[in-house]
């Protein structure tokens, strides 16, 4: 799947919930990885001073994460594998957040260990997995396919826990595992490598029943190479690895359960519990055998007894269960760290001293907590970054505290974002503008004049929203449905804000609103299904404004809803696999089936009927979201193409279609995670699409100016067109210049808004028009009317550039961008996302960069992704040096003449980088192979194919441009450079930012140069122009005629 989408997350005040179910620290002790019950994975920065800060959150799994493990030799590739409740497995690059590989197997793993035997193994190593299946699975670490199993010859059962034993003494790697029924098994690994690779069955070498039920951990002491620690929930035991004789047993305190343990050093252990305590023991030798005799009692064996040295604990805010782990590194500068993650999403670290000692009087000493952190802490610390998408709206309204968005929907065709809040209000705003107002600095006027509407109707939280027209045209485009905590479904007119009808269901909070299927032909099709939290299903007829059926008998949550149009039946599948069949006409329950019959009914209707509600429950919300994420891109992309052609054909005739193509490059995706009410939003920018639109808009602009002007005024006209576009962007509509002036002051009563919806482009008000732009608006007189989308496109492009530019690195660059390119500064750094293949998404969390950015002194906004970016941009400059030298002249003109052109150019650059980096990600394995350049070459071809749409008008210019795109020597070096970057797992956005920085720097230099050498000339030639705008005489210079054909 081609990924050309850039994502920017707009969080809310409340962090997504993250109930930690698995936690690990990477081998370099720089990243903590946690998996959650919600299915997300969170990456945390761990500084060398053991400070924690959440960095990124990875979406992709649809069920609770069960275990995490490293998936490669960490020094070579920073990969981590995660497995979930429903059998998904995923390999992530934890430095870039990219999903490397994913698979879904019918196995649920509870523990995974990476095993690699460098000299005798082909491939990237194995993942040894155990879980809810018999024995041990060997999974290929690269492909995630099942290679083989380690089977048992007797008493095979699920394996609870295991560990890999590397023993130099025995010269053999083996796998020690304990089964659910307490049988200890040992498999040889290194000596069975061959038979595993040849798929011969491998049985255990030893099998011994231990007296321990519910074993939680088994560990081998590498220091003595003799002791084996077995931790079960009620006790921990130490065995002699040579003959598996029991050396000591220690039971846990009542009310506690042991959860795991690790060997600290020879004869020193750390054991932890489910409730977040841990204990460090010293094993003392006792010939007088305080504890237990060996089982057969023949020889009184040397035994050991434990002595408690230290302990750790948590005092407050306990939340079950704790998942703990321990990293034991002896190398400097690494620490011995005990870490725990809680269901509340909090991480706690204890730095365990190298030599733990008890207090002087012999009583155990408490080791204090070294650090503790949660995602919410990050959100609180970086308030401005975690501002919600409409928080500024709420704030501006009579100062009420910002309302938490509890549900939202984005309507691409209208570019409207509808947000339902905790307090029952529903905000309807314009998507792109809202995003701009939220992200950018210095546009308070835009912020104040942001058109929005508030719909008041619900008395408590708005739980779901539906815009039915979105996906099927049979619904009236003005209908917006909202369901609330108050069990009321309201049908609104989205344009006027009126309540059309109010359905009171009286069956608990509305949990879901669904469109009826397309092929359901009953009564005009204006039917919507509504699921309530008492598991009832209501069928609402929107046209007639009646509730046709309210089916209330379901005992379990509704999983599937189907219609049988022939017999007019409603078929409801519940979570317990039972099926209820309702007669819609009469409202009676016709049948209730369970078991096989139920299954048969559901599958039989499957093919003939719709499948509408797979993603019905909050459980599947995540998957729905993911599906959306993927499909929206691809499908909207296609749609976009169709639409676009359409609009070209009938451009002048229909403004509606014209504007409706706005939505393709930019979408807002509302996201809700399981068990939370709060929503956050992801802004998606489709780079390819945007680039395409930009190119064609340039074309349009030129055509129009061509048609309007004769040759001698051409230059001037062009410059005005450019300027117009610039200003248009701010004043938004040019349609009505003078009549609008009166409206400038805001109208802020609840229901009113300056709604410049696509449906009413003519009444689009210029409320956000700015006085100081009057001057330029004079020039707009002859502008063609078909350019609304151009503004939106450029706006979108600029918004994205704003997000990407390294603000705060160089004041001059910032100024250049703001003044000349009209790219506005960010209000605060943004959280970028990375969409990797198969709908996996990683999103940065607020405060992601705080460990990295101590470089820069006082600056309002710093938006540097990492220090590395500076180096990279220098490298890039160096690599592309030759090129620039070659076309210094023309480029001067490019930059000189048009600020907007530069924007376009910068944009095409990042699109290009994105493309280059994404190619190897699909053919990673073949990076070295000779055919590597081919696909890229093809890509270049494509790019070139795209460039001809650059008007030939630019003549020389365009040739220089296309040379830029074509695979000449300079580009190849660029290509190589970027390849080398992606090999070093440099993130796409880092690369993009570096390239942007370099290009902007270069622009600035050339500008300076031209400014110096051309100024006198320009004044001589074009004095009148130069005096036009006194602020920046070079700007005017830039508008001076350039030698074009």
């Amino acid at each position, binding site marked *: 799947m081609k990924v050309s989408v850039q994502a920017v997350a707009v969080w809310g005040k409340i962090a997504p919930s993250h109930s930690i179910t698995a936690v690990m620290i990477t081998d370099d002790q720089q990243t903590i990885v946690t998996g959650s019950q919600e299915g997300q994975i969170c990456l945390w920065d761990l500084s060398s001073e053991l400070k924690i800060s959440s960095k990124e959150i990875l979406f992709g799994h649809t069920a609770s994460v069960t275990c995490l493990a490293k998936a490669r030799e960490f020094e070579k590739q920073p990969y981590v594998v995660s497995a979930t409740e429903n059998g998904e497995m995923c390999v992530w690059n934890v430095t870039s957040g990219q999903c490397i590989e994913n698979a879904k197997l019918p196995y649920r793993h509870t523990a995974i260990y990476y095993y690699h035997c460098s000299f005798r193994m082909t491939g990237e190593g194995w993942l040894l997995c155990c879980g809810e299946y018999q024995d041990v699975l060997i999974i290929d670490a690269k492909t995630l396919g099942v290679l083989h199993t380690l089977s048992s010859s007797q008493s095979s059962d*699920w394996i609870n826990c295991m560990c890999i034993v590397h023993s130099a003494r025995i010269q053999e790697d083996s796998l020690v595992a304990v089964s659910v029924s307490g049988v200890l098994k040992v498999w040889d690994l290194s000596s069975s490598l061959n038979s595993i690779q040849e798929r011969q069955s491998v049985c255990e070498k030893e099998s011994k029943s231990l007296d321990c039920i519910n074993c939680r951990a088994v560990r081998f002491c590498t220091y003595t190479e003799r002791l084996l620690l077995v931790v079960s929930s009620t006790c921990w035991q130490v065995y002699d690895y040579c003959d598996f004789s029991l050396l000591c047993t220690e039971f846990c305190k009542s*009310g506690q359960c042991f959860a795991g343990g690790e060997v600290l050093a020879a004869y020193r252990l750390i054991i932890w519990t489910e409730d977040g305590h841990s204990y460090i023991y010293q094993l003392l030798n006792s010939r007088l055998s305080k504890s237990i005799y060996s089982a057969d009692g023949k020889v009184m064996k040397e035994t050991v007894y434990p002595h408690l040295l230290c302990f750790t604990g948590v005092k407050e805010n306990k939340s079950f269960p704790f998942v703990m782990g321990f990293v034991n590194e002896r190398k400097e500068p690494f620490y011995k760290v005990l870490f725990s993650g809680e269901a509340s999403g909090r991480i706690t670290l204890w730095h365990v001293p190298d030599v733990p000692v008890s207090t002087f009087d012999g009583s155990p000493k408490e080791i204090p907590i070294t650090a503790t952190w949660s995602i919410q802490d990050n959100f609180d610390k970086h308030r401005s970054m975690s501002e919600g998408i409409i928080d500024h709206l709420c704030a501006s309204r009579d100062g009420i505290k910002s309302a938490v968005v509890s549900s939202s929907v984005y309507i691409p065709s209208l570019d409207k974002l509808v947000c339902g809040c905790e307090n029952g209000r529903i905000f309807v705003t314009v998507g792109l503008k809202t995003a701009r107002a939220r992200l950018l600095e210095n546009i308070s006027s835009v912020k104040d004049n942001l058109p929005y509407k508030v719909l008041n109707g619900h008395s408590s939280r708005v739980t779901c929203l539906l815009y039915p027209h979105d996906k099927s045209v049979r619904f009236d485009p003005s209908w917006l449905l909202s369901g609330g905590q108050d069990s009321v479904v309201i049908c609104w007119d989205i344009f006027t804000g009126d309540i059309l009808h109010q359905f009171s269901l009286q069956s608990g909070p509305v949990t879901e609103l669904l469109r009826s299927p397309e092929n359901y032909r009953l009564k005009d099709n204006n039917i919507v299904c509504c699921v309530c*939290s008492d598991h009832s299903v209501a069928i609402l007829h929107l046209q007639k404004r009646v509730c046709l059926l309210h089916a209330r008998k379901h005992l379990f949550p509704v999983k599937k809803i189907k219609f049988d149009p022939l017999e007019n039946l409603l078929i409801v599948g519940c979570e317990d696999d039972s099926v209820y069949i309702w007669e819609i006409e009469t409202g009676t329950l016709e049948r209730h089936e369970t078991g096989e019959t139920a299954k048969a009914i559901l599958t039989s209707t499957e093919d003939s009927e719709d499948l509408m509600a797979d993603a019905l429950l909050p459980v599947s919300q995540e998957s729905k979201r993911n599906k959306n994420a993927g499909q929206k891109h691809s499908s909207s992309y296609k749609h976009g193409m169709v639409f676009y052609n359409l609009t070209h054909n009938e451009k002048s005739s229909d403004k509606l279609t014209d504007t409706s193509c706005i939505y393709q490059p930019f979408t807002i995706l509302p996201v809700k995670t399981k068990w939370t009410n709060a929503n956050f939003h992801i802004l998606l920018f489709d780079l390819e699409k945007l680039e395409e639109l930009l190119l064609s808009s340039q074309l349009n602009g030129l055509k129009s100016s061509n048609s309007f002007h004769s040759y001698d005024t051409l230059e001037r006209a062009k410059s005005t067109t450019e300027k117009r576009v610039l200003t248009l962007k701010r004043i938004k509509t040019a349609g009505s210049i003078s009549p609008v002036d009166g409206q400038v002051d805001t109208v802020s009563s609840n229901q009113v808004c300056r709604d410049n919806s696509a449906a009413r482009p003519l009444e689009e008000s210029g409320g956000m028009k700015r006085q100081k732009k009057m001057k330029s608006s004079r020039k707009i007189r002859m502008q063609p009317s078909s350019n609304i989308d151009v503004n939106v496109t450029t706006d979108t492009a600029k918004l994205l550039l704003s997000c990407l530019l390294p603000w705060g690195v160089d004041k001059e660059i910032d100024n250049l961008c703001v003044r000349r390119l009209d790219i506005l500064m960010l209000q605060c750094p943004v959280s970028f996302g990375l969409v990797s293949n198969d709908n996996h998404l990683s999103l940065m969390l607020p405060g992601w960069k705080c460990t990295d950015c101590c470089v820069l002194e006082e600056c309002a906004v710093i938006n540097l992704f990492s220090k590395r970016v500076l180096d990279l941009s220098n490298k890039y400059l160096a690599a592309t040096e030759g090129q620039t030298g070659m076309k210094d002249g023309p480029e001067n003109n490019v930059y000189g003449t048009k600020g907007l052109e530069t924007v376009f150019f910068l944009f095409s650059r990042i699109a290009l980088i994105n493309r280059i980096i994404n190619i190897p990600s699909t053919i990673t394995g073949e990076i070295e192979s000779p055919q590597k350049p081919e696909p890229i070459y093809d890509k270049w071809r494509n790019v070139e194919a795209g460039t001809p749409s650059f008007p030939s008008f630019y003549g020389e210019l365009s040739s220089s441009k296309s040379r830029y795109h074509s695979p000449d020597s300079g580009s190849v070096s660029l290509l190589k450079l970027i390849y080398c970057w992606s090999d070093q797992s440099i993130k796409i956005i880092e690369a993009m930012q570096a390239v942007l920085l370099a290009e902007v720097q270069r622009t600035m230099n050339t500008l300076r140069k031209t400014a110096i050498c051309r100024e006198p000339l320009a004044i001589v030639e074009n004095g009148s122009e130069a005096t036009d705008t006194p602020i920046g005489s070079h700007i005017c210079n830039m508008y001076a005629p350039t030698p074009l054909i």
Partner: protein
Amino acid sequence: DEEFKWLLQEEVHAVLKQLQDILKEASHRFTLPTGGSGGAVKQENFVLSTSGTDQVKGVLTLQGDALCQADVNLKMPRNNQLLHFAFREDKQWKLQQIQDARNHVNQAIYLLMNRDVNYQFKTGSEVLKLMDAVMLQLSRARNRLTTPATLTLPEIASSGLTKMFTPALPPDILVNFYINLNKLCLTVYQLHVLQPSTTKNFKPAGGSILHNPGAMFEFGNQRYEVSHVHKVECVVPWLNDALVFFTVSLQLCQQLKDKISVFSSYWNYRPY
């Protein structure tokens, strides 16, 4: 709000206790083999037959999750010849479905055990998460019993089961054991070899719980067709109990979830 507090502090624990008791009861039904020391698990005999014909009759001995003895009597329809097979002394056949179901129940119990009376639930979502986890285990346990594995005929032919009998099974007989709901089932397939010259259209059958006569497959370079299928079964009473316990406890869980959701408006938005 007070009511919600009561729900979290009192009612939730009451329900959890009740759940635990039910599940422990269910778990007892599965008679966990107490490794070595606790003595052998008791053996139960089941006679599998159909009421009408007595073409196939099986006497199976179940010990925990394993079939330790099996006697299968088969009357060949053509010649009325009586065939008899039994498990070899040293062999046992593990019924994976029972083992999995038992393990899932124990997992559920373990989840509940962690939250004893002293534990204080602070939010509703905490309870919901716990219930979701428990319900997942329980529904898996139930599904293991209610949905036997769908096997292809070559899989049955190649399974270790065929090698467990004495006297050895003739090559034209396949047997399979599984659990379906509360019943222990035995299917015997009689095969006949498809000659390479046959005009029949060979179409290998896919995976299924029970294959029908006429199903074809290829195994060991030989093509076979199923000529007769005999299925006999016998109710295992404790499996029935276990299934009832699962259903009851799933309902309890859901009810608790529903109760909590009623108060969902009172949840604070910061979960902890």
